[in-house]
C-alpha cells in the first residue's frame, strides 16, 4: 500500500510541478480572497486582527475546492481513471497517495497564506507554545481537508457537473474543520482565548482527520469502481 501511495503521490506532485496551477492560479485566488475580505472589513486593523484566523481558513477551504478539482482533473481529462481501475493498484494506496499530494500542496499554500495574513492583517506573533499549536493545527487540519477532498473528488470525478457539485458536497462536511481550526488558531494567537483552550479543538481536528482517513481507506475501492 505504501509503495502505491508513494507512486501516486509522486505522479500527482510531478503533474502539479509541471502545470504550476497551484502557484499561478490557486495561490493568487487565495490571496485575492484575503485582500477582498480586508477591503470588505474597511481596513480596520483591530477588526482584521480578530477575524484573521477565520478568514484565513475560509480562504483555505475555497482553495481546497480548486485543489481537489485539480487533483482529479488529470484523471478524467483523457480517461486515465479507467486505466487506474485496471492497473491493479490498491485503492487504499491510491487514496493515501492522492490525499498526501493534496495535503502537501495545501500545506505549502497554508504557509504562503500565513505570510500573506501577517502582511495584510498584522496579527501579533505567537510565542513558542503558540507556534506549536499553530503548526499542529495547520498540519492536522490540512490533512483532514485533504482526506475529505480526496473522497469527494473521487465521488464526483465521473460526473459531468462535478465542478458545481463539489462545493455543495464538500463545504458542509468541512464545517467542523473551519470551526475547530479557527478556534485553535485564535487561541494560538491569543485572540479571545488562552493557549490551553486550543488543545480540545486540535483533538477534534485529529478525530475528524482520522475518521475521514479511515473512511477513505475503506471506501476508495468501491468509489473508484462506481465512478
Amino acid at each position, binding site marked *: 500500500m505504501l509503495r502505491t501511495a508513494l507512486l501516486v503521490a509522486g505522479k500527482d506532485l510531478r503533474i502539479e510541478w509541471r502545470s504550476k496551477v497551484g502557484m499561478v492560479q490557486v495561490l493568487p485566488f487565495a490571496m485575492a480572497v484575503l485582500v477582498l475580505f480586508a477591503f470588505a472589513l474597511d481596513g480596520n486593523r483591530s477588526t482584521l486582527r480578530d477575524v484573521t484566523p477565520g478568514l484565513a481558513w475560509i480562504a483555505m477551504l475555497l482553495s481546497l475546492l480548486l485543489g481537489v478539482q485539480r487533483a482529479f482533473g488529470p484523471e478524467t481529462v483523457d480517461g486515465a481513471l479507467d486505466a487506474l*481501475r*485496471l*492497473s491493479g493498484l490498491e485503492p487504499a494506496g491510491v487514496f493515501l497517495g492522492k490525499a498526501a499530494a493534496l495535503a502537501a500542496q495545501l500545506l505549502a499554500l497554508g504557509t504562503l497564506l500565513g505570510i500573506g495574513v501577517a502582511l495584510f492583517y498584522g496579527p501579533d506573533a505567537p510565542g513558542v507554545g503558540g507556534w506549536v499549536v499553530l503548526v499542529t493545527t495547520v498540519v492536522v487540519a490540512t490533512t483532514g481537508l485533504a482526506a475529505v477532498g480526496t473522497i469527494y473528488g473521487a465521488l464526483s470525478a465521473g460526473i459531468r457537473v462535478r465542478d458545481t457539485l463539489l462545493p455543495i458536497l464538500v463545504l458542509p462536511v468541512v464545517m467542523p474543520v473551519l470551526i475547530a481550526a479557527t478556534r485553535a488558531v485564535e487561541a494560538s494567537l491569543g485572540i479571545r482565548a488562552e493557549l490551553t483552550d486550543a488543545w480540545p479543538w486540535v483533538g477534534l481536528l485529529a478525530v475528524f482527520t482520522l475518521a475521514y482517513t479511515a473512511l477513505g481507506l475503506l471506501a476508495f475501492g468501491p468509489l473508484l469502481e462506481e465512478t
Partner: protein
Amino acid sequence: MEAVVDLHDAVVLLGRFPALAGVTVTIGAGELVVLRGPNGAGKTTLLRLCAGLLPRVRGTATVLGVDTEHGARALARRVGLLGHRNGLYEDLTARENLRFWGRAIGASRAEQDAALAALGIEGRLAEVAVGRLSAGQRRRTALAALAARRPELWLLDEPHTGLDTDGRDRLDGLLRAAVVAGATVVLASHDLDRVAALATRTLTLVGGRVVGDELASVSPVEGGDQC
C-alpha cells in the same frame, strides 16, 4: 479451446437504453476478433463489459474465468483496455507516463522502453509532454503503455484512429506478435479493410446484438509481419 471471453445473454443498460441487448458469444485463447457494426451497435459497451467497467443487468459474463461483476480490479493486470481516450497524463512526458503505468503493473524499465521503441516513440520525442504531442503520437504512447502491460486479453476500441501508415503497420505487427505469444485480442473498428487482414474472426453487432459471426478462411496472424 479455452474460453477467454464467455458471454451468455448479457444485457447492459446505459441509463435506460439497452446498449447490449442479450449478447451470447465465446472467444477462445489466441483469437484476434474484430467487432464491426454501425455507430451505437454496442461495440464499445461490449469491450467495457469485458474489462469489468460496466455492470450487466441480465445474463452471465466471464472473462479469463472471472465473473465481470467482480469489477475491473478483479481483472486488473490480465486485461488491457484502450478506449477512445488514451488514459495518459498530459503534463507528463511519454516516458514518464510509461514509467508510472509500468511501475503500477510491474513492468520493468526495459519492457517500458522496448514498448515505446516498438511504437516509434524514441529519443527526444519520449521526453516531450504528452499534451504537446500530436494525436497520433499520443495514440502510439497509449499503445506502448498497453503493450508494456503484456495483458492476456487486449481490448481495443478503434485503435488505428489518428495513426499514420507507419503507426498502423506497427500496431498491426504488435497485435500479431501478441496473438503469437498467446494473448487474445478483441478490437472494434470501422477500418474494415485493414482489420480484415488481421482478424481470425469477425463479429458483427447491430442494435446491441451479435448478428454475424465469421471465421477467417486463412490465418492472417501467421502470415503477417512480426513486430
